């Protein structure tokens, strides 16, 4: 069987989530191709071609693809699927936006957020905020799958796949890109960061969130996250949200500050290697998943933590 992976990228770099999705694809088949769709694909295709185990890189260039328009991806990928048995996309906001559209056009189910490939037809995926794992067997001839990247190891480099251009569809008639505001940050990307520092509702204001959480994240060289409660209250932007309906992260170190540990937040971080919780409520559910819990008011504990980190040279 042949498998197509749709690359996740930021216009200049192929993201790590692509390498992880290739690992999931290689569990299905050894014939794995990558599709790089962007406004300009040259540098991206060269990076994708180096991923070990990849047979071929397909490139398609258009403004609408560069803007990530789902209608354009549907028009590009559906005809390509004549030559593939499965298409895999990382379950990023972009992957979630385009993949179901492709599935519906192919008249097949989408198998969402896959965390394990059991065999070519059988997959494991989390449901109910990760409180249950569902093993499903697909009867569809073609599989449309989104992959939870955090659980797969990234495929290494060392490949030398050939690159082949395919023609891009015309611009979709009913959708116009107006603009985007991407947060420019020197911090690592939340989805792939080794260390994440997250703040919750206890912060009480956006100023406090900014003053407490961000310096600690910077001291640790980590990314900043937030609970849904903190995002809901307007203390942090939505793209910081870690949880069932936000981002799923699995860093080496996750530091939860003033986060109670609602079900929906735990869904987004409980696969982290080491979890630290700082909360003044000793009964907060976050302590049930924390490897190291510190029962303290963050207003006291975070400055002390900053000081101790300085002492060890951070």
């Amino acid at each position, binding site marked *: 069987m042949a498998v197509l992976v749709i690359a996740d990228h930021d216009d200049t770099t192929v993201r790590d989530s692509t390498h992880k999705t290739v690992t999931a694809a290689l569990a299905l088949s050894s014939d794995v191709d990558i599709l790089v769709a962007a406004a300009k694909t040259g540098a991206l295709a060269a990076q994708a071609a180096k991923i070990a185990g990849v047979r071929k890189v397909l490139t398609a260039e258009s403004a609408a693809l560069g803007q990530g*328009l789902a209608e354009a991806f549907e028009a590009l990928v559906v005809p390509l699927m004549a030559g593939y048995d499965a298409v895999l996309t990382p379950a*990023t*906001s*972009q992957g*979630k*936006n385009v993949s*179901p*559209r492709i*599935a*519906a*056009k192919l008249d*097949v*189910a*989408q198998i*969402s957020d896959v965390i394990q490939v059991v065999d070519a037809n*059988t997959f494991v995926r*989390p*449901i*109910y*905020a*990760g*409180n*249950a794992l*569902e*093993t*499903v*067997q697909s*009867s569809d001839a073609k599989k449309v799958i989104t992959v939870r990247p955090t659980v797969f190891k990234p495929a290494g480099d060392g490949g030398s796949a050939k690159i082949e251009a395919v023609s891009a569809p015309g611009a979709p*008639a*009913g959708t116009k*890109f*107006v603009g985007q*505001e*991407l*947060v420019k940050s020197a911090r690592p990307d939340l*989805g792939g960061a080794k260390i994440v520092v997250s703040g919750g509702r206890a912060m009480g204001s956006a100023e406090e969130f900014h003053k407490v959480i961000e310096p600690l994240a910077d001291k*640790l060289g980590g990314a900043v996250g937030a609970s849904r409660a903190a*995002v809901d209250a307007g203390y942090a932007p*939505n*793209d910081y949200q870690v949880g*069932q*309906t936000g981002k799923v992260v699995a860093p*080496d170190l996750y530091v939860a500050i003033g986060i109670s540990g609602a079900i929906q937040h735990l869904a987004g971080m*409980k696969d982290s*290697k*080491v*979890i*630290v919780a700082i909360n003044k409520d000793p009964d907060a559910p976050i*302590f049930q*998943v*924390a*490897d190291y*819990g*510190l029962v303290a008011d963050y207003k006291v504990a975070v400055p002390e*933590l900053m*000081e101790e*980190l300085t*002492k*060890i040279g*951070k």
Partner: protein
Amino acid sequence: MKVLVPVKRVIDYNVKARVKADQSGVDLANVKMSMNPFCEIAVEEAVRLREKGVVSEIVAISIGPIQAQETLRTALAMGADRAILIQSDQDLEPLAVAKVLQAVIAEEKPELVLMGKQAIDGDNNAVGQMLAALLGWPQATFASAVEIAGGKAKVTREVDGGLQTLEVTLPAVVTADLRLNEPRYASLPNIMKAKKKVLDVKDVASLGVDTVPRLKVMKVTEPPKRAGGIKVESAADLVMKLKNEAGVL
């Protein structure tokens, strides 16, 4: 302008799902059920659009068991004008849900479908996009702001790394993200009024849509539990343990 708002009855978001001992699924007996939170946001947005004079009629629709009438009554109490229940005792997959909605849309002819981005039970985040594809309509998913004017919807979308703004020509499918609005609580007079609003019930079979499942659930299991951790006494103790014991600093 007519808006169709699909809503789903799901386990209440504060309740932790428990896996059945026989691994056949999640135990929903005697569990509190509510409207999916993202569906509430979609209903609220539709009501706000009507308050602005952009929308003239809001039709809420649910696909599910007879008890989903309660969910539809909630939507009616929030401000939907009438409701449709497509009764199905079988839990439908997103593709089947999209096909059922497509069949209803052929009759209702709304200019906008406003729905939640994701249901918190199946966590698929797929129906809106699938419906847009089947209808050949534009989509604007994960909306945090919606403005409607001149037959178009300008939608701000929550994407990884920031915000994107699209303009889609109506009819279109828009899916709601968390920050779109804060849903209202239905007032008692509105709850009473909702009881008198029209709620039509149709059997899913009457639509003649293919709802055969494509995925067979082999088993549903509990995720591995994290071993309990320890409490540390101080920030100094924490840093020492993270450095020496966990090796993550």
